[in-house]
């Protein structure tokens, strides 16, 4: 692998940038591997990378139906954070946060991890109490959390609508280590590092079925580029988990929903970090290119369309206008939708499936991006050792049957409300 550095950049610049090699190897499928990972998004590629790096397993295929990073890895709003309150979630997201913090050195790739802070606003006494509780829970897990009062928020973000008649800003819960990262670079960085360790990344290779042996074990996948065998197959296809699992006869506690996102024209730097509205469905940050990147809630109906409808566009824009009226002066440049796995408690699944040889990494709801390194780390651990990783030990598939749900929002088995 050609290492990237200021010197390599200077050297290539002097030769007109003509001699860069492809970042990773576009492989053709071989007939068998030790492990097949279905899904060449951030999670699948991170899994392959950590399998190779941490567990020394390199005979791996990552099969992707389109191009790597072309699904949700390319459609999210790039926020990273670990501000979770429940015991099942906090250690996992903090593991992920720590991996973000070391990612660029580890991958020798500029993933533009920017710890510019994530600020959740609160607008009532009750919400403040809930945030105090969440902040304390975070600190007990060793995660940074600061409760800001109204004036401290004003010092950080004076442009907010502090005196909104219905939802005046009382303060906020700040995680300074949260922030954003460059989503495409995360995919390319993991692909490059995994490919370098011998992982085959196979694009335009859609899984159409599973190969089973006489005992019903999964022993490989049928794809549009032929049969590929492996004793272990891991699914990392969030958005389409139900669809792929159905090929193995599984029904999952998941619904696929559409989540929309938006970006404005480029503006001068104005928003210091990530800001979320506590009384409506709106959150915003500013990309390094200057566009305001914002979004809100899922549309609320099952969809594989990767595009949403106007009521949510209106709802998000109204939320933006309520909390940050100056956004009304910015023109909307683009909006898009992604298909997300909404699980029944709003939390993910990293576990064995009930079928031997098939492993699940699913149910990431609208929060899969921040989990990318942690998900890869823990799924690699599961695939390599057949044991759940300690930090992801709550993400069991059977938690719904056993009553150990991890319902951060307390909505119950109604996925469109999480």
């Amino acid at each position, binding site marked *: 692998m050609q290492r990237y550095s200021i010197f390599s950049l200077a050297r290539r610049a002097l030769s007109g940038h003509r001699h860069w090699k492809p970042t990773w190897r576009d492989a053709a499928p071989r007939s068998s591997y030790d492990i097949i990972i279905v899904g060449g998004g951030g999670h699948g590629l991170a899994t392959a990378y950590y399998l190779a790096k941490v567990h020394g397993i390199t005979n791996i295929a990552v099969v992707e139906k389109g191009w790597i990073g072309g699904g949700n890895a390319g459609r999210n709003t790039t926020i990273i954070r670990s501000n979770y309150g429940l015991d099942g979630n906090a250690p996992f997201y903090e593991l992920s946060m720590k991996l973000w913090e070391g990612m660029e050195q580890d991958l020798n790739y500029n993933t533009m991890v920017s710890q510019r802070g994530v600020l959740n606003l609160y607008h009532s006494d009750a919400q403040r109490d809930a945030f105090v509780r969440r902040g304390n829970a975070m600190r007990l897990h060793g995660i940074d959390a600061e409760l800001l009062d109204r004036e401290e928020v004003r010092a950080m973000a004076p442009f907010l609508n502090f005196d909104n008649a219905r939802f005046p800003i009382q303060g906020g819960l700040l995680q300074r280590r949260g922030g954003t990262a460059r989503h495409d670079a995360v995919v390319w960085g993991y692909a490059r590092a995994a490919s370098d360790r011998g992982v085959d990344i196979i694009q335009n290779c859609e899984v159409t079925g599973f190969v089973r042996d006489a005992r019903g074990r999964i022993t490989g996948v049928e794809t549009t580029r032929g049969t590929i065998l492996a004793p272990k197959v891991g699914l990392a296809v969030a958005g389409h988990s139900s669809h792929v699992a159905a090929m193995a006869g599984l029904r999952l506690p998941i619904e696929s929903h559409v989540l929309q996102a938006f970006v404005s024209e480029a503006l001068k730097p104005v928003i210091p970090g990530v800001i979320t509205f506590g009384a409506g469905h709106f959150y915003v940050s500013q990309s390094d290119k200057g566009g305001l990147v914002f979004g809100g809630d899922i549309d609320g109906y099952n969809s594989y369309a990767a595009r949403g409808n106007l*009521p949510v566009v209106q709802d998000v824009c109204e939320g933006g206008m309520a909390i940050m009226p100056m956004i009304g002066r910015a023109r909307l440049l683009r909006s898009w939708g992604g298909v997300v796995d909404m699980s029944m408690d709003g939390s993910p699944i990293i576990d064995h499936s009930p079928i031997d040889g098939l492993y699940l990494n699913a149910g990431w709801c609208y929060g899969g991006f921040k989990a990318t390194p942690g998900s890869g780390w823990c799924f690699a651990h599961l695939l390599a050792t057949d044991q759940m990783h300690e930090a992801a030990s709550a993400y069991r598939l059977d938690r719904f049957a056993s009553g150990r749900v991890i319902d951060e929002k307390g909505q119950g088995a109604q996925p469109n409300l999480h």
Partner: protein
Amino acid sequence: MRIPCPYCGPRDTHEFVCRGETDTNRPDNDEAFYDYVYLRDNPIGSVREHWYHAQGCRNWLTVTRDSQTHEISEAVLAKDAAR
């Protein structure tokens, strides 16, 4: 996406709340109850769902919709569909 409400006529989804897949009847044993509450078919293609016309005639509809194209082929009152 507009839903052709059998009473109100075509209306924007803004007026509706989606409840999800129309399911089998409430089961009477614990094992089937897990299935009923938590598991979903979640198919690509035609789905039958319950939508509540909250900001209209306040009736539950059974809607047949394509989850990939959002095309709605049928919407009837849920009480008629259940008959």
